[in-house]
């Protein structure tokens, strides 16, 4: 048993007392075994002293997806976060950042401190409070309970989340490659807890972004060989301004997902399928940007940014001769930035602005890069770490080792 302090960001919509109106901080002292969870700590506080403390929870085993919240700034499941480790993390980050969480919600600075609740930076030494907040990117209903309907479920429904088979069902089961089922099971493993939605940095900037969980759900159908609407789904997701090309590739969702779904990886696979496999030229310039980038490296080995801008907005000779309105707009928008660059000398040498003047790799290096392209574009192997298992090689090595016999010491259960 050990003592912990939970610093909870609370909101009681019906509060009448001053200091309890709007969001406020309140601390709870709890005592429990370090291997128990932050959820156990919250339930101890709720059951033992304050029944108004609201938190969704059910299974306690990271399967129902109810208890998504931010703990020390990190979006996660409270049931899956050991309280001892959360306290250690609180102590680790407090040294660097007086307000606690490494990624704190923008709203935090406006919060008033509740009665007797120490505010940021004033906690007692030795027992750094575990900072607990409701999930981000979602309106708060009460305490740690957020509104996922308007921020997630609506978008979940947006991706037509059911199988659209290509024909009438077969007499028995569909015959499909075994790996294909394992592959989409990575997305099926999503428990819709909203941790990725909470952490999504694109959604902070664009609340209409379909978001990591819903797009992972979309991949679950696109990647399913039984679905008959693959092209239509991809076309839709690629052309939505808040779709697959609205993801800023920040890995926040990958980092917080408690189930290893890696939503961003699924989004990138949707891009690969939409772009390369289905050659969908979207209105967001996603395909053009990808192709431009890939071609430049093939020709030059390193990136020529000026060329990339042109290729993204107005690809190829045809793009330059017959530019679309959107291409012209995109290029025009980039002109002020370029002019500023010339003025400061950032692009002091004019050649920097002339696509195609960027140097090639020395000697025969570029030929070898080209050879790599030729082979890789031919074979296009996609190693899926989810299917083969991460650290797959280590696994194979361990196969040979005899399993250990039962130890006399009890495991930490």
């Amino acid at each position, binding site marked *: 048993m050990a003592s912990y302090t939970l610093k909870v960001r609370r909101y009681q919509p019906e509060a009448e007392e001053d200091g309890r109106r709007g969001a406020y901080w309140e601390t709870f002292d709890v005592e429990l075994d370090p291997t128990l969870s932050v959820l156990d700590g919250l339930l101890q506080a709720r059951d033992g002293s304050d029944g108004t403390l609201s938190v969704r929870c059910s299974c*306690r085993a990271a399967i129902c997806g109810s208890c998504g919240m931010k703990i020390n700034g990190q979006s996660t499941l409270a049931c899956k976060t*050991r309280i001892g480790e959360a306290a250690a993390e609180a102590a680790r980050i407090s040294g660097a950042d007086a307000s606690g969480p490494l990624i704190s919600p923008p709203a935090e600075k406006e919060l008033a401190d509740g009665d007797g609740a120490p505010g940021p930076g004033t906690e007692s030494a030795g027992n750094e409070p575990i900072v607990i907040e409701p999930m981000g990117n979602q309106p708060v209903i009460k305490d740690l309970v957020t509104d996922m309907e308007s921020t997630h479920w609506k978008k979940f429904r947006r991706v037509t989340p059911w199988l659209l088979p290509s024909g009438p069902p077969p007499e028995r*089961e569909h015959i499909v490659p*075994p790996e294909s089922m394992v592959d989409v099971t990575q997305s099926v493993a999503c428990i819709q807890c909203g941790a990725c939605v909470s952490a999504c940095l694109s959604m902070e900037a664009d609340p209409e972004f379909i978001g990591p969980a819903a797009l992972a759900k979309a991949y679950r159908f696109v990647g399913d060989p039984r679905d008959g609407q693959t092209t239509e789904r991809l076309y839709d997701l690629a052309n939505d301004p808040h779709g697959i090309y609205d993801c800023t590739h920040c890995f926040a969702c990958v980092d917080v997902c408690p189930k290893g779904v890696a939503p961003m990886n699924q989004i990138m696979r949707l891009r690969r399928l939409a772009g390369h496999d289905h050659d969908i030229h979207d209105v967001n310039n996603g395909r053009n940007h990808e192709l431009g980038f890939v071609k430049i490296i093939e020709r030059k080995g390193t990136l020529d940014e000026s060329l990339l801008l042109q290729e993204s907005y107005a690809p190829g000779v045809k793009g330059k001769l017959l530019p679309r309105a959107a291409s012209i707009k995109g290029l025009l928008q980039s002109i002020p930035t370029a002019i500023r660059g010339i003025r400061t000398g950032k692009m002091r040498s004019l050649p920097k602005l002339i696509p195609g003047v960027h140097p090639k790799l020395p000697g025969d290096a570029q030929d070898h890069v080209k050879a790599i392209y030729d082979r890789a574009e031919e074979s296009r192997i996609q190693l899926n770490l989810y299917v083969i298992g991460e650290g797959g090689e280590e696994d194979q090595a361990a196969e040979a080792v005899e399993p250990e016999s039962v130890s006399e010491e009890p*495991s930490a259960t």
Partner: protein
Amino acid sequence: MPEHDVLVIGAGLAGQRAALAAAERGVSVGIISKVHPIRSHSNAAQGGINAALAVDDTWESHAFDTVKGSDYLGDQDAIEVMCREAPDELLHLEHIGVTFHRNEKGELGTRAFGGASKARTYYVADITGQAIMHTLYEQLMKYADQIDRYEEWFTTDLAIDDEGHCVGAITRNILDGSTELFRAKSVILASGGNGQIWHPTTNALICTGDGIAMAYRAGATLMDMEMIQYHPTTLAGKGFLITEGARGEGAHLLNAKGERFMETYAPNKMELASRDVVSRAEQTEINEGRGFPDGTVALDITVVPRKRIQEALREIVLVGRDFAGVDITREPIHIKPGNHYTMGGVKTDVWGRTNVPGLYAAGEVACVSVHGGNRLGANSLLDTLIFGRRSGEDGADHAKGRGQGSVPRSALADAEAAVEEIIGRAHDGGRRVSEIKAELGATMDGKVAVFRDEEGIQSALDAVRRLKEEAAGAAIDDRGSVFNQDVLGAIELQNMLEQAEAVCMAALERKESRGAQYRTDYPERNDEEWLKHIDVSRNGGEPEISYSPVTITDWQPEERTY
């Protein structure tokens, strides 16, 4: 006042399947759940779903295994229905998108499970329940025009008309605390089991058996309530589940001396004997001093090839790592029998009909009875789907051509007043709801568990009756309307105590050992006197015991060995 032809209460597998089946018959459907449907406890079913689908398998073989597993208490007509319809149901799931494991030919592949004479368990890694339930939820989206969802609405009571017909339900919107009377021509209870009566349990916090309690109050008969399954492999302390699929994949059970003790108890099936048998074996090892000091034995998954673990037991690798700090691919994990499932529940026929007209029940809330004294692993998902679908179909047919019933005017006001009474209780120094619940859980786990005797059960019953009185006056903290979980907790406690009383009474009544009920004072099965169901019902308030016959078709009771 919301009105539907069919109203489903509970949105796990049984409830969603019922709603979809009813919608396919063209009626309007409402589905209510106290949590978002995706949070329902069907999620937690890891191992798989049984069906005799393979060409060399037969539904009769599946049925016999189930009958034997039930220790001959299961009703064989119902078991036949379930096993015969299983293959089509499984194919239906595959057709709507469940990502079942495939063999190398791309066909559906199976794994072995306890008590089964063939490997007939179909699965999605070890998240089978989640995978199926999410797929059904997708179908709810597809049928959104016909199915209205009420997510996070807490049903407090059924609405019964003057003739005793069920004509709707009274439900509190958790979001704002408002109460609605839902009218419906058929009401299907699919609100799950009651594992929270025990502590620890593998069951989620929401598994408080609310549906069993409200049906019981409304005059429905409960059956087989004494039959409580203790799962052989749960983590000590927290009660988390380690799937039977682990043993299906070849994992061993070892005592502290490193002996595969199942050799003594079930020399043929070993770790894959039925759950009651394995749990008793473990508890015997522990009681006789061959367990570990923490009151456990060990499950050794390291004998399963690592690649296979990675593919088929992914979730329990996480459970071991996150909740026990054990890498199950490298070392054995300590486990013990833990509360897992109630075979009993609201008594129904094979169409889910209860003795209350208009009221159906399906899934763990119900007792058809296909599980009898002991449920086989991977038969629960099947039960929810088969009888969920049948309830939905029959509920829809029942609703067609009927008008809405009339609900006594006072019903809504009475229900609201009951909730307000709880919210308004003053703190008078009495114990908190959580403390009463904790005592209930410890008492039931101590006295009404793997091994039972008259003295223990009687003391549990006395405690439950005392706690019932105490709970009736327990005060809460939250006086608000918005997301008042405090008041829901108090209602759930009342529900659990009512069921606990019925469980204790039935366990006390059955003076023999059968399936999950092992009486140390009556250690033998006694078919002469006890090959019958124990029913509990409430007439005018006090619980009464009665009996009903077990339906036997093809399989006469035999000695049960594994």
